[in-house]
């Protein structure tokens, strides 16, 4: 299925103040892949994610989602295909109740009332939060907020899920739940995080970026065991890898 593909070709991005955030990024992510994006603070991860649904347009180069090239005109269409889960659920959940929030996207897609109801119920059921539907977001716990934030995005049935630090601020149980949830999805997934153990459990492929360039792109098992590469990028071996190293 060609519409689940995301391709970056030589993408540059310069902020208005002159900061070069992306310096020629190229990669191709195909249907059903799950890719972790790692890098030091300020390496350009967030900027990269913002290109994916057209919140920012590349200064140079091309971003293609499915058969559509990202431009000012196509970005509304692209936002239907690419669902972004933001780092802070308080930014994502802006409606007065959970139900309204999950319904926000589908209603904007101008679906019928019954269809919206179906979608919302389904999405909330998937993340196990159906019982919270009448609650206002400020009465939810951190883990619940995160789950609902994911529901708001999957209710729009995107082809590609993009997440920024999904495991931050979660207690271990909620984190485990999230891992199981994500492994149950068959969307194409792109996850930017510093939680390398999380990537180890969810992704097959990993991209390392540094100063707006890709410095490594390969299988998780190769990259997340490369101590030198990781330390060059302000990262370290995932804890689970460190432990097995010690016992063997």
């Amino acid at each position, binding site marked *: 299925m060609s519409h689940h593909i995301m391709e970056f070709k030589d993408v540059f991005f310069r902020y208005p103040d002159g900061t070069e955030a992306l310096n020629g990024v190229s990669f191709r992510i195909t249907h059903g892949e799950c890719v972790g994006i790692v890098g030091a603070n300020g390496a350009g991860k967030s900027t990269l994610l913002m290109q994916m649904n057209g919140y920012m347009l590349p200064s140079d180069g091309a971003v293609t989602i499915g058969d559509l090239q990202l431009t000012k005109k196509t970005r509304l269409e692209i*936002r239907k295909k690419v*669902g972004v889960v933001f780092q802070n659920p308080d930014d994502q959940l*802006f409606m007065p109740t959970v139900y*309204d929030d999950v319904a926000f996207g589908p209603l*904007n897609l101008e679906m019928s009332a019954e269809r919206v*109801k179906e979608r*919302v119920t389904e999405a909330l059921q998937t993340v196990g939060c159906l019982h919270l539907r009448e609650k206002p977001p*400020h009465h939810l716990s951190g883990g619940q907020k995160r789950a609902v934030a994911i529901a708001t995005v999957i209710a*729009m049935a995107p082809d590609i899920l993009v997440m920024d630090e999904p495991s931050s601020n979660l207690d271990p149980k909620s984190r485990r739940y999230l891992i199981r949830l994500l492994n149950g999805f068959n969307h194409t997934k792109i996850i930017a995080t510093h939680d390398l153990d999380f990537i180890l459990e969810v992704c097959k492929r990993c991209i390392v970026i540094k100063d707006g360039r890709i410095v490594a792109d390969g299988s998780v098992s190769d990259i997340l065991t490369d101590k030198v590469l990781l330390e060059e990028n302000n990262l370290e071996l995932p804890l689970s890898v460190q432990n097995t190293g010690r016992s063997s």
Partner: protein
Amino acid sequence: MSFDEQYFKLGYIDTLSYKNTFIHRLDPRTKVIATLAFVVTVVSFSKYAITGLVPFFLFPVLMFALGDIPVWFILRKVLVVSVFAVFVGMFNPLFDSRVMFSFHGLQVTGGWISFLSIILKFLLTISAALLLIATTSFPGICHALRKLGVPELFICQLLFLYRYIFVLMEEAMRMVRAREMRSFGARGQGLRTFVSLIGTLFLRTIERAERIYQSMLSRGFTGTMHIAKAYRFGGSDLVCLAVTGIALFILRTYDIVGIIGKQAERMF
């Protein structure tokens, strides 16, 4: 009173609106219209009206009872704001010294009567407004206002206000706490730190607004905030509105307390 306490009080009036009583179950439109009618009727009384106003306390009392709302909580709020009403009416007794009647030698001037009238009107209207909020969820009120023709832009603003006042206050609370931890005694509590604290809060708010807008766009926002929940304007709403309307009309046209007083006078 500390910032933390204030924050939790704000949360409390919000939790009240999630109760499930007869009053809470009414359609928000009914309550908005009834409250509006009530306020307008009360305000329409002449400036010397007192006896006519007294029966109107029946409405708040009924709301308190049927809505299971803690009386002291609302009354305290009313008292806090009542300072304004006192200021508004304060000079009436000085300017209007026309003697209206004398009561066992005590001369009562028009100023005092109109002062009392202002206080009564104030108590009635403010408690009605607070009771509306305590018995109706905020999204419900927004929905009612939208149905009654208030422009979409204002509704959006109100919905965001409701959603982010809690986030904003939590952020402010964290900053205030952090300041208290590191300021020993009066040092660091001064106006200068306060100003920079507010400044930081403002900048953070702008950044947050940017991120929220981003997340709205990524979910296809084009200018309207839809509310999915369907409210139903049912039979009990109609009855409530009718009863309120008739009661307001009767109390406005007939001075019930005055009539009872005259009857009593005739009997003794």
